[in-house]
């Protein structure tokens, strides 16, 4: 198999024509675009050597893998995206890949052409869902591609939480994974979105999480990156209505030879908007991470308030964290602050704990837990918090 027309035609049977066309266009974009080059600023610190895309041109069946869900209020649609595309074409057609654009780069095009699995969640105006909605995505073997896509549409004044969990089950061989999300937050809506990436340790993972926030809406997005050998995630929020608030938080824990890359964007298109970003990461062994974030305040976006911080705790001599926080400010009536730090464990903290009879390993673990504690408090709902804490616990050992 290959990432070609034959594979595409086979994979998309039964899908509506518009989606079929869109996939074919994405495929031709994929064929036309070269791999990003290291002369592109975005990819300068990201090494794609060893990525052999055609080797993963086999798909694990994802469609129809619906989780057991709590009873959903009337009007809510929660369906596998492929099924929803047939049943709710008029809802999905204008939205799908309008935020996560297929022509952005070769990987986005590949994802748009071959995405399988993932869900549509549509919550009508004024509807509140108490229990979090779960979208789980599994991979079982190496040498394959798993490309789930989540589409969330929050009606006016709706309120709910969503958790995407990317899980590897006994899958340690090289593979290709994505896991993108498009989130449309309607006027006055409040959405919590958590993505926990735990793909196999030898996977290549490239994903886009992008949200669009209307007037007076709130998004609390929380990204957790733990898996894959190579993980590149773009987390982006466009604030298009006054009063919109985007909270973008992330934690990552990189060990062994893992490489994590995050590019974030806080795009204030109109005034009276707020964004608050904090990404915290711990690195050990020979892991490497890159964080590059941009706050962009457009010309008319007066009285915007933007905060961006990236903190890295480097637990070994050989681990390397790179942090690039950027600002583009086109309006004076704003408050923008950003900061980045990269540093080892404070020897004073370590000494204090050791002097209390705590072993160095335990002391380091406590320091890492304390380091993450501040941001864990911002996980939008309890269920996600328990999951993430358990995952961290298991990894800190």
């Amino acid at each position, binding site marked *: 198999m290959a990432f070609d027309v034959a594979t595409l035609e086979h994979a998309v049977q039964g899908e509506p024509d518009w989606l079929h066309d869109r996939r074919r266009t994405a495929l031709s974009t994929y064929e036309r675009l070269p791999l990003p080059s290291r002369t592109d600023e975005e990819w300068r610190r990201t090494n794609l050597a060893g990525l052999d895309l055609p080797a993963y041109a086999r798909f694990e069946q994802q469609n129809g893998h619906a989780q057991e869900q709590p009873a959903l209020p009337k009007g809510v649609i929660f369906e596998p995206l492929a099924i929803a595309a047939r049943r709710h074409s008029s809802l999905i057609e204008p939205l799908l890949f309008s935020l996560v654009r297929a022509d952005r780069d070769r990987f986005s095009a590949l994802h748009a052409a071959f995405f399988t699995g993932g869900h549509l969640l549509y919550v009508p105006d004024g509807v509140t869902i108490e229990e979090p909605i779960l979208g789980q995505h599994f991979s079982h073997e190496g040498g394959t591609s798993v490309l789930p896509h989540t589409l969330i549409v929050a009606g006016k004044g709706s309120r709910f939480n969503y958790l995407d969990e990317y899980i590897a089950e006994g899958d340690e061989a090289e593979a290709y994974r994505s896991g993108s999300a498009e989130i449309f937050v309607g006027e006055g809506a409040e959405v919590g979105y958590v993505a926990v990436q735990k793909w196999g340790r030898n996977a290549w993972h490239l994903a886009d999480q992008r949200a669009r926030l209307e007037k007076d809406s709130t998004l609390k997005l929380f990204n957790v990156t733990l898996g894959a050998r190579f993980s590149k995630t773009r987390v982006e929020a466009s604030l298009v209505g006054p009063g919109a608030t985007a909270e973008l938080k992330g934690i990552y824990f990189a060990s062994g030879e893992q490489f994590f890359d995050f590019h974030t964007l806080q795009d204030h298109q109109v005034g009276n908007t707020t964004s608050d970003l904090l990404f915290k990461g711990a690195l050990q062994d020979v892991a490497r991470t890159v964080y590059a974030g941009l706050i962009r305040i457009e010309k008319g976006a007066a009285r915007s308030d933007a905060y961006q911080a990236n903190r890295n705790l480097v637990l070994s001599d050989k681990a390397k964290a790179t942090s690039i926080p950027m600002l583009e400010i086109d*309006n004076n*009536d*704003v408050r923008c*602050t950003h900061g980045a730090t990269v540093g080892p464990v404070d020897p004073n903290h370590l000494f204090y704990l050791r002097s209390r009879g705590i072993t160095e390993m335990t002391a380091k673990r406590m320091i890492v837990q304390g380091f993450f504690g501040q941001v864990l408090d911002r996980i939008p709902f309890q269920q996600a918090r328990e999951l993430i804490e358990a995952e961290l616990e298991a990894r800190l050992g």
Partner: protein
Amino acid sequence: MATAPKPVDVGSDYKEKYGFFVPEDYVFKAKRGLNPDIVKEISFMKNEPEWMTKFRLRSLEIFRKKPMPNWGADLSVIDFENIFYYLRASDKQSKTWEELPADIKATYDRLGVPEAERKFLAGVSAQYESEVVYHSLQKELSAKGVIFLDTDSALREHPDLFKEYFGTVIPPADNKFSALNSAVWSGGSFIYVPKGVRVDVPLQAYFRINAENMGQFERTLIICDEGSFVHYIEGCTAPIYTTDSLHSAVVEIIVKKGARCRYTTIQNWSTNVFNLVTKRAMAYADATMEWVDGNLGSQITMKYPSVYLMEPGAKGDVLSIAFAGKGQHQDAGGKMIHVAPNTTSTITSKSISKAGGRTSYRGHIKMYPGATNSKSFVKCDALLLDDNSRSDTYPYNDVDADNVTLGHEATVSKVSDEQLFYLMSRGITRNEAETMIVNGFIEPFTKELPLEYAVELNRLIQLEMEGSVG
């Protein structure tokens, strides 16, 4: 509560403010444009050794091959074929103040150099057009073995020392504009401070450009031998002209073991000048290099003073302010390249944008694999005085070293209503209050300057701020 600040046209009253403009009177003026013949002619007119002629021609080749930078400010309007690459105001180098040509002295009078400063100016290497015409070394300097010459004279008088260091910090192939400078350089300062010598008086040079469409390509080389100290100050002012002018300097500094060098710049080119400067220092064991860099003028400035921290214990420091008014883009910052272990660096950037001006902080911290236990801290603050203006921060960090600490902080804000209210409630006008706040904002920079420069800078800020409130 307050009315919106009215944009001020910085350029419109430039002539009254800094309009010292004297008729052109050149001994030699090369033809416009750039080709090997002009480069050879420059070298011939200066009676240079063959290696320098070859160096220039090789640099020209590199310049032709290098593409224009595809980042930063828009440089597409520069027409390299429409520039004079060499001018010489007079054949003879003046030795004392009295011998200075009258028209040049007139220029200094308009600059407002006070009588009391004349003595201080004995240490001034005044640059009129591309070449140093006035130069006086205080006797004590030469007694200590300090060499302070214009770069052309240094090539003649100290050929071996010159050849040993010239082009070693910034090779012609470094970037397109360093290649251009290497091909057509003229003037600039050459300083050598011997081992253990401290130069207590700051060495100063005034730079001027004064011919339409004339490029200024000065070349400065400073060598601080082990354990020495020198403070060099360059201050620039220029009259305004209608067509674009290019300034592309190269400054190379070598700070040897335990030495300290401070290089202070107050750049106030007229707002039609493209100021594209490469400044770099090599700091060796336990040496300290400090760039104090103020950018007020020019249409576009792209300048990132850098320090290569080559040996353990080296320290680099950049303190930068930028002021961008109408039509100006200050793309400035700093670079710290950590090569050796236990090296430290700090970059502090303060920028002010008003009346549609744009300031960009662009910085690079690079820590190579050997730079274990190194530390770097970057702080950028930006002040936006009205909603037409723009501020960007682009800090690039590449860490390949073990066990390093790196910090970056930045804020962007406007003049706060609380501060203004407080000052105005004390009977201070809005304009005065804003000027005070801006002067306070750049105070970390001002306080590093010698007094007369600090006064001059505060006066300049005041002029720039005038009429900013409607």
